[in-house]
């Protein structure tokens, strides 16, 4: 095969070799990375203050420069926050509530997501009369301040006979997670090809089989998204954790609150900071681990409105 190149006039062959301009990208890069780094500083500044403070002793904190690095690094506050800080008579720090938090978070996250995903699935694929109405109510419900609902829910739980139990708390988390999660799942499932659903129906799969065997395996990203939202919300929840349960179930945030919120007495800021960071570690870990899936999941779920 003869290339046309050989036949081209010399002028072209010698033609100005376009220099590969590097500048084209670099100015843009300066803007992009510059902005991102400045913004990152804004995000990181409080974290810096928290970490620095958590490594100082109280006398140093009283001196007052919150930005100054610790003169003398001490891990005392961390130890104290985790294992020694007192809640009334119980002086075993956050560790006391840790397992309770796990005991609350795991079933609450699982059940709230399970319920919301099934709702979203039913709304997206098995639409029935009136479903839209309930969904609209649900979305409006997302705007109701939680506190207002405390008494009615106390009454409902009491009548159901689950007040003060873990079950009750799980129900509450499920209820309050429902609006946003259902929205997420509904949009996600609606974005999946409808033909898959039809194919499964022809194959004889029913409501639950389709959900478990077809939809669920395809929706892991959105489940991760929901999990991140719920883990963060439930893990950091304080109010429901104490209002709707009894002391043997009190989550870690009760300790956190106790450490941070003592009104009369000394505020140990270093312990506060350590406790906050410690408490945040679990959701943070979830973010780190599932960061990539997070973006992908929302992309699939939320893009269709």
């Amino acid at each position, binding site marked *: 095969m003869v290339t046309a190149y050989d036949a081209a006039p010399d002028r072209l062959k010698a033609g100005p070799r376009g220099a590969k301009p590097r500048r084209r990208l670099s100015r843009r890069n300066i803007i992009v990375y510059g902005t991102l780094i400045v913004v990152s500083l804004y995000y990181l500044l409080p974290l810096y203050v928290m970490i620095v403070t958590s490594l100082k002793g109280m006398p140093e904190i009283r001196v007052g420069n919150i930005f100054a690095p610790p003169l003398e690094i001490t891990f005392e506050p961390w130890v104290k926050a985790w294992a020694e800080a007192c809640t009334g008579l119980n002086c075993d720090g956050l560790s006391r509530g840790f397992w309770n938090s796990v005991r609350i978070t795991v079933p609450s996250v699982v059940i709230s997501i399970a319920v919301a995903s099934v709702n979203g699935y039913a709304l997206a694929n098995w639409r029935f009369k009136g479903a839209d109405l309930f969904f609209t109510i649900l979305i409006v419900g997302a705007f109701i301040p939680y506190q207002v609902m405390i008494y009615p829910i106390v009454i409902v739980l009491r009548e159901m006979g689950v007040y003060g139990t873990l079950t009750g708390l799980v129900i509450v988390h499920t209820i309050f997670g429902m609006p946003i999660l259902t929205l997420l799942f509904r949009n996600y499932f609606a974005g999946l090809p409808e*033909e*898959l659903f039809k*194919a499964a*129906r*022809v*194959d*004889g*799969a029913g409501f639950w*089989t389709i959900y478990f065997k077809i939809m669920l395996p*395809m929706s892991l990203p959105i489940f991760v998204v929901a999990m991140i939202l719920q883990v963060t919300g439930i893990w950091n929840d304080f109010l429901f954790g104490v209002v709707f349960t009894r002391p043997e179930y009190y989550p870690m945030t009760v300790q956190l609150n106790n450490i941070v919120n003592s009104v009369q007495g000394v505020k140990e800021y270093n312990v506060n900071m350590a406790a906050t960071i410690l408490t945040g570690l679990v959701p943070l870990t979830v973010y780190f681990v599932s960061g990539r899936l997070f973006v992908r999941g929302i992309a699939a779920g939320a893009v269709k409105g």
Partner: protein
Amino acid sequence: MTSVSVRDLSLNFGAVTVLDKLNLDIDHGEFLVLLGSSGCGKSTLLNCIAGLLDVSDGQIFIHDRNVTWEEPKDRGIGMVFQSYALYPQMTVERNLSFGLQVAKVPQAEIDKRVKRAAEILQIQPLLKRKPSELSGGQRQRVAIGRALVRDVDVFLFDEPLSNLDAKLRSELRVEIKRLHQSLKNTMIYVTHDQIEALTLADRIAVMKSGVIQQLADPMTIYNAPENLFVAGFIGSPSMNFFRGEVEARDGRNFVRVDGVAFDVSAYPARTKLQPGQKVVLGVRPEHVKVDEPGAGDAHQAMVDIEEPMGADNLLWLTLAGQSMSVRLAGQRRYPPGSTVRLSFDMGVASIFDAASEKRL
């Protein structure tokens, strides 16, 4: 004996009526193609037969059993979708066996059927792969396999080949045809590709806005379209239409179009053409003869565009003030601007009443 029969089927989405009192009978072992442009209700009809949409009114019988309100899985149908609709997280094997497992078919039986389907469709080497690791053609084969293992008598295809490129399309078309010849079951096949319709169908139902325009075998549809819509819809490039008036002269009938008179005496009209009647004369591009010696009624025309297509050559010309196309076998070239003499074979032409658009 009818395999599938649809009686007075109506379907509306809210206020929109998509199907209105539609009737259709499909014989045992017949290959019926539903053909029509986008949005005419083909998929809707197929989904009704499959039980994926609740009908608003009417009945559906499969093997003389009224299945109007039965679940899809109980209707004895298999279905293949345009987008393959394979379960992405399952291997090909699982995709094939899923329905059977749901139906609690014994494992041995499942294996047997999967094996058979895989053999028929030649996808044995793919059984352990996931759909994402397959090419488009292979995916569609698996999708067909999924219908196959169900061991049902009625297959429903919803534009199974639309997502494939031309080459694959023609290959799979042959395979589906072969499959039908060997299985001899009933197939209802939705497409808007007329090549598929013509090559595959025993009978074609041409639909428009939810109404079946003509239901007949491919050659009848092709050669004797019942109305203007069917005539224009079938054939690529489209049939050339000339609107004109019937004129009787010297005992012969002509259709006069913009000053040009076409001799239509040879046309086998069902009812006698009335002079003065407004009609539409339709001639397929491949039924136009070019520069044929001895053709009596020849018309001069100039080539606008030439489209050589390898096996044949497509000419676009202007005649009687209208653009028309001509398809010539072979590779004889007519550069744009050259003049040709055209003659029409009235034996295979069509004439429609201009008002009712019905064949005359």
